[in-house]
């Protein structure tokens, strides 16, 4: 039995030694096989949590979580990344979309409606760096949208917040009547950490 453990240990060790670790900050979620794109400097952690925007009846709630060593079978590598889901209530108090339950399901990387790990402004101080994440509407997946998220630490009585801004790229709609906007209005939001 002891011999088996030793062989297993050697095997795992050899796997570890053949894997190259890259910094997410330096290299992003790279494409190199047998690599691990690690959040070496814990850039992602500050964005995690439950964040809420409320103005009158309008509510945008986002939950962001960090996943470590997510394996991608196509590129055959691992990465640390953020995933998230959200819900939106319109000014009339009607819940328009709620994807939060998807966090309870183990999805493939980028299958969550919020996902990514692209650290922006890498030459700026750590506190100034933003992160760019994919933002999907599950009923309008053809829309190529992203959010750029900036974190603001709590200072005195000022709560910890994130600012999000929408951006996007060219989308190919399935037909002439397809909506061309997300159901969440694509405006700037400041969300306060609630959990």
């Amino acid at each position: 039995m002891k011999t088996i453990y030793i062989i297993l240990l050697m095997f795992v060790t050899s796997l570890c030694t053949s894997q190259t670790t890259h910094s997410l900050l330096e290299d992003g979620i790279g494409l190199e096989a047998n690599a691990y794109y690690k959040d070496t400097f814990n850039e992602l952690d500050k964005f995690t949590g439950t964040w809420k925007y409320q103005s009158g009846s309008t509510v945008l709630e986002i939950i962001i979580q960090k996943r470590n060593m997510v394996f991608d079978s196509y590129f055959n590598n691992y990465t640390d990344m953020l995933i998230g889901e959200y819900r939106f209530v319109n000014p009339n108090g009607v819940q328009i979309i709620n994807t939060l339950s998807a966090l309870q399901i183990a999805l493939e990387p980028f299958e969550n409606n919020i996902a990514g790990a692209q650290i922006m402004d890498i030459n700026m101080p750590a506190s100034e760096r933003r992160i760019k994440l994919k933002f999907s509407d599950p009923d309008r997946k053809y829309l190529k949208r992203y959010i750029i998220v900036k974190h603001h630490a709590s200072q005195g009585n000022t709560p910890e917040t994130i600012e999000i801004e929408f951006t996007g790229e060219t989308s190919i709609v399935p037909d002439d009547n397809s909506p061309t906007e997300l159901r969440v209005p694509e405006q700037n939001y400041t969300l306060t950490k609630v959990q």
Partner: protein
Amino acid sequence: MDKLNSFTRRGSNKKLVSSGKYKFSVDTEKVLLLEKGNYKSLTFSILRDGPSNKFENLFLHPHKGGYLAFLMEADFDDFDRRNLDVGDPIAGLLSKLQFTPLNDFDMPGLDVEYTPTDNWTGNTYNYPGTVWEEDGICYTWHNYAAAGEPVDFRPIECPGCCPKNTGGGSPVNTSGPRLVWQQYLAIVDMIGSQGGSGSSGPGSGGSGSGGLFIPGDGFYTPFNPVKPEQVEPLNPQNEDFYHPNPIIGVVSPNRPQLQLSPCNTLNVLKNDPVIKNALNTLKGNVTQNNERLFTFSKNGSGETYATPETNNTGASASMRLTAATYGVAHTHQSGTNNNSNLYKMFSFTDLQVVYKLAKGYGGSGATAAPLFFNMMVIEGYTYIICPNNVNTFKNMGSIFENDKNVERLNFQLNTIYNKYCNSTEANAATISHESLARYLLMFLNNVGNNSKVLSGTNFDISLYRVSNDNNFSGGWEKMELDPNTNYQLKNPISCN
């Protein structure tokens, strides 16, 4: 006719005969003879003194025991010529053919009888959806029903070849004879291939039927090209059209094989008034917060039409691609709202658009697309990306059909732009587009000494640009990397 047939024997000596009146010669060893029943026509490639890049045929149409002579001239641009060489359809083919009756034609060396030709006139007729026939010989064109537009047919009055109405619809003119369909085939075959294969005629959208024109059935597809060494024409596939003794003779156009360069194709695009107009519109929007775009599609006549984005309120543009869409031109949002600005260079999802164009193009009735492309208009320049090998590119579905893979590649290209091109600036819109172009090429073609800027896949993409100045009148420049200088960009290579 026996004498004419003798011109076509292989191995006989080249024989040039000339027309003193019309100042051209033909090579009697290079003649296309089409037969159907008693109908026999001859088509020769015309030779003139000095270099000529024209497409000209002498066409002899049997009539009253003799022949009527026509000069056929084709107004083909470089892209049409490339299509001829590779066997692709030509947009608006019939409208590009000009026929001139050769009055009192005289070419003694051909030793044929010519029918006296008095009062030849050329007329243009549009036929409302009907087919005309005369004694099993005289087929003619009709309105192009699929496009809802008449074909500019340019038939020629031909005394004695009166058609009769054999189809539906109301005849427009029953008194005037028409240039028959077979003759078009002969002419087109003459100019369109290295040999008279006749293996496909007017097609039915890929059904492979070939041969006889089927009313309302779609586009005319030129013959498949024949290898230069293939001196004997193939039997036509459709016996409905050709007689069991089909074509005899060998046709070899008197011109060098034209290989249309990518630059020439790009010039065809740039000089298309529809595309140029769209580029000028985009040029006026390059500093806006909103992304703008046009898609370019082919209508049933092979003409390009442009469609703007389907939305015009959000920051990001949306579009719908159809089976007729072959290109896109767009801007990236680049205004005062710096945070949402996109780089002044293609994203990976822009390349995915090209894949979807190439993959989705070619529904029923689609004409040949010049190439599949995505253009980006920025301040000063318009860039274009296009795959070097469309067939290989179309097989990259494992990447382009997988949203996760596209997202990863898109994020990574953005990361590379951000890290290697963005030394001090936080605004994507201010970064040098040449620097972005360099990393785009390394990433997409998977070349370079830094493994961190590679995609792991060679997408085999070319990148060109043209100045926006003077109504895009300058030439395209190819952007290439120099492996001898650590894959720096070479000086742009002129395409002209």
